[in-house]
C-alpha cells in the first residue's frame, strides 16, 4: 500500500505559468519534506514542515512556496516556473526529526517546463 503519494507523476507546465504539486501521506507522520532533484544529482532539500511549523532552506528561491493544510497533505507551489526548475520533485515524511527517524519518500513528480 502506498504510504507517500505524489500527484501527478508527470507534470508539464509553461514558462511562467504557476503550478502546484501535491503530496499526501497515510503514515500520520509529523514531518513532511520537499526535495528538488535534477538529473543525475542528489536531492536538494527545499523546505520542510514539522507539524505546522514551516522551515525554509536559506537557498530556496522565493519562487517556491509550500502549504500544509493538515497532517496528511502538503503542496509545493511554483509561482513562475523557469526552465531551470525542470526537475524531479520528491516529497518525504518522517515521524520526527533526526537520525533515528527514517524518511519515507514518494515516487516523485517529474516537472517539465516548456
Amino acid at each position, binding site marked *: 500500500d502506498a504510504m507517500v503519494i505524489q500527484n501527478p507523476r508527470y507534470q508539464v507546465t509553461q514558462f511562467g505559468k504557476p503550478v502546484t504539486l501535491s503530496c499526501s501521506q497515510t503514515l500520520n507522520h509529523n514531518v513532511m519534506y520537499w526535495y528538488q532533484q535534477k538529473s543525475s544529482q542528489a536531492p536538494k532539500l527545499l523546505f520542510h514542515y514539522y507539524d505546522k511549523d514551516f522551515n525554509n532552506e536559506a537557498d530556496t528561491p522565493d519562487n517556491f512556496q509550500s502549504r500544509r493544510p493538515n497532517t496528511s497533505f502538503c503542496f509545493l507551489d511554483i509561482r513562475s516556473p523557469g526552465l531551470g526548475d525542470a526537475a524531479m520533485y520528491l516529497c*518525504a515524511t518522517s515521524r520526527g526529526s533526526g537520525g533515528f527517524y527514517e524518511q519515507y519518500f514518494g515516487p516523485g513528480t517529474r516537472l517539465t517546463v516548456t
Partner: protein
Amino acid sequence: TQLLEQSPQFLSIQEGENLTVYCNSSSVFSSLQWYRQEPGEGPVLLVTVVTGGEVKKLKRLTFQFGDARKDSSLHITAAQPGDTGLYLCAGERDTGNQFYFGTGTSLTVIP
C-alpha cells in the same frame, strides 16, 4: 557548498565484483544514512549509523561510520545486477536536525 562528497560519482562493474563507495565531509555528523534510489522512484533507506566506528551489515552490504563521524563507506560484496541504482549518503549535522544528501554514486552492475 556541498557538505558531503561521494566518490566515485559513476561506477560500472561486472556481476560478482566487489566495490566500495565513499562519503566524505569536513563536518561532523551526529548520524548518517545511506539510501538507494532506482530510476523513476524515490530513495529508500538502507541503514542509519550513529556511533563513530560503527559497522553495520545488510546481507552483502557493509556500512561503516568513521571514528570522527565525518565520513562513511559502503562496501558491496559480489555485486548483482539488482544492486544497480543511485546510492546516496545523507548526514545530519550536530547543529541541526535535517539531513543533507551527498553528491551520489551511480552504480551499474553488468550481468
